[in-house]
């Protein structure tokens, strides 16, 4: 990109390719290319070297969303984890639990996925690994019932943090979105301000459908944090640029592997640099 003497059509096309292949999507890419062309027209940008810098700043601006990251302002601090199938919800809860336990917090995991085969068993193993407690009701098929009892127990046992795992679900399944809303209502019966954090898990390998997911989950559940998983692969996760810009939801952490330590706070500078 940067061996060029001037910003021309070829260069803009190369930039378009970089942004599209990083999954920023057509709309966000067009908005960024337009802002570059505006600058060039106004003679504010004529050096290809400065171009990369300008783009990085613009993308950083899209990602810069002020938001209360997980702050344990309340006790028990209720974290509800949601998202479509297979994105890494259960594993991410395992990672978060380990992190919070190491910080000296008392963590309770809730096996809110009462549907998928061996979901409870999977979470139990993560409880063992992290040292967190876990509430699981093997014979109960209604996640709201499990969550209600668990939140009550968390208050009684004076837990610091409650991490609620839910079953994966496509945002297009209206009845499953209603099930989520019911889970939120039962939390609010016990804790009117809850859930304090509703985390949407997005998979970095996803394409533009992630935007549809974010919008619909947000509309149903008021997401106030996102975790982007599987950034250890070759996908760039550019879907979050448009999502952050549109919905103004902060990215809290990134998942970079399958082990307990493979979770890092989101760093917009590193993320933007990795795109190029």
């Amino acid at each position, binding site marked *: 990109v940067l061996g060029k003497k001037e910003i021309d059509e070829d260069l803009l096309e190369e930039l378009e*390719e970089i942004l*599209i*292949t*990083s*999954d920023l*999507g*057509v709309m966000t890419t067009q908005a960024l290319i337009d802002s570059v062309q505006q600058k060039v027209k106004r003679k504010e940008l004529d050096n290809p070297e400065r171009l990369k810098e300008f783009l990085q700043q613009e993308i950083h601006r899209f990602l810069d969303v002020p938001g209360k990251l997980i702050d344990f302002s309340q006790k028990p601090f209720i974290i509800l984890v949601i998202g*479509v*199938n*297979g*994105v*890494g919800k259960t594993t991410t809860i395992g990672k978060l639990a380990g992190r919070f336990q190491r910080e000296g917090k008392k963590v309770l995991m809730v096996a809110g996925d009462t*549907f*998928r*085969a*061996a979901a409870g*068993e*999977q979470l*139990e*193993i*993560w409880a063992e690994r992290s040292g967190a407690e876990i509430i699981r009701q093997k014979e109960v098929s209604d996640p709201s019932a499990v969550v209600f009892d668990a939140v009550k127990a968390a208050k009684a046992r004076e837990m610091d943090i409650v991490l609620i795992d839910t079953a994966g679900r*496509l*945002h*297009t399944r209206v009845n499953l979105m209603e099930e989520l809303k019911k889970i939120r209502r039962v939390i609010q019966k016990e804790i009117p301000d809850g859930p304090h954090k509703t985390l949407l898990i997005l*998979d970095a*390998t*996803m*394409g*533009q*459908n*992630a935007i*549809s997911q974010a919008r619909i989950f947000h509309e149903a559940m008021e997401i106030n944090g996102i975790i982007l998983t*599987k950034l*250890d*692969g*070759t*996908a*760039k996760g550019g*879907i979050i640029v448009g999502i952050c810009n549109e919905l103004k939801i902060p990215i809290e952490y990134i998942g970079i592997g*399958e082990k307990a330590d493979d979770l890092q706070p989101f760093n917009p500078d590193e993320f933007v640099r990795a795109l190029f």
Partner: protein
Amino acid sequence: SLSERLNLTFKKLKGQGKLSEANMKEGLREVRLALLEADVHYKVAKDFIDRVKERSLGQEVLASLTPAQQVIKIVQEELTGLMGGSRQDLNLAGRPPVAIMLAGLQGSGKTTTAGKLALYLKEKNFRPGLVPADVYRPAAIDQLQKVGGVAGVEVYPSDPKINPVALCLSAMEWGKQNGLNPLILDTAGRLHIDQALMTELKQIKEQVRPNEILLVADAMTGQDAVNVAQKFNEWLELSGVILTKMEGDARGGAALSIKSVIQKPIKFIGVGEKLEALEPFHPDRMASRILG
């Protein structure tokens, strides 16, 4: 929708009886945008548009169709042709037990799809067996055993302390002794760039010699689909692909990207979490869906 956008584009170019370079340029730009929005890979979309341009230049607009309809017809045909045209059924010929090996990225739907395939084959009067070869993921063996219970098929009693290559070999012996055929090997999710784990898959292939090696890929995959498919194919020489989570609203451009890049047939699609939710792949329906 694409047809609405194309109609708008061609309205401005009214009265043109032939598809020319000029009026095609705008139309194809709309098609290209539709493909990119559908997650088709940047380069795949470019190559595809070039092909369509070649095919449609100088064509007379059929009297019965508007220029927009003409472009859509050509694009639809090209897309359908690209994504179909190869053998879609499972190759189960050979001395039993034959193996079907499933591979793919983490969370793509392999374990669930293994159960779906088992149920599908049982209904075709086979006696399939499931082999849990994922010794890494917490409760993975448990998950496949439960899935096998729902499908009503035998599941190999995997020991997570045994390495997956030896495990699969023993499972083939178990299958033979129990008169099971075919055996479906459910492997652990892994990155296409993980040398050690890709080597493990290659070793399973070399030892077991499966009839089918299927890439299980998520329909919502974005631009990365090309990298993943290419690498898995390089390591394993895939025999086909299964696209999961197709009942959602993802446009599924990954289907075109994968097919263009590895030229292997998409054999099935997953359309839900239940074990009945497996359907054959229809290239024409996929083409309309991608175009939006």
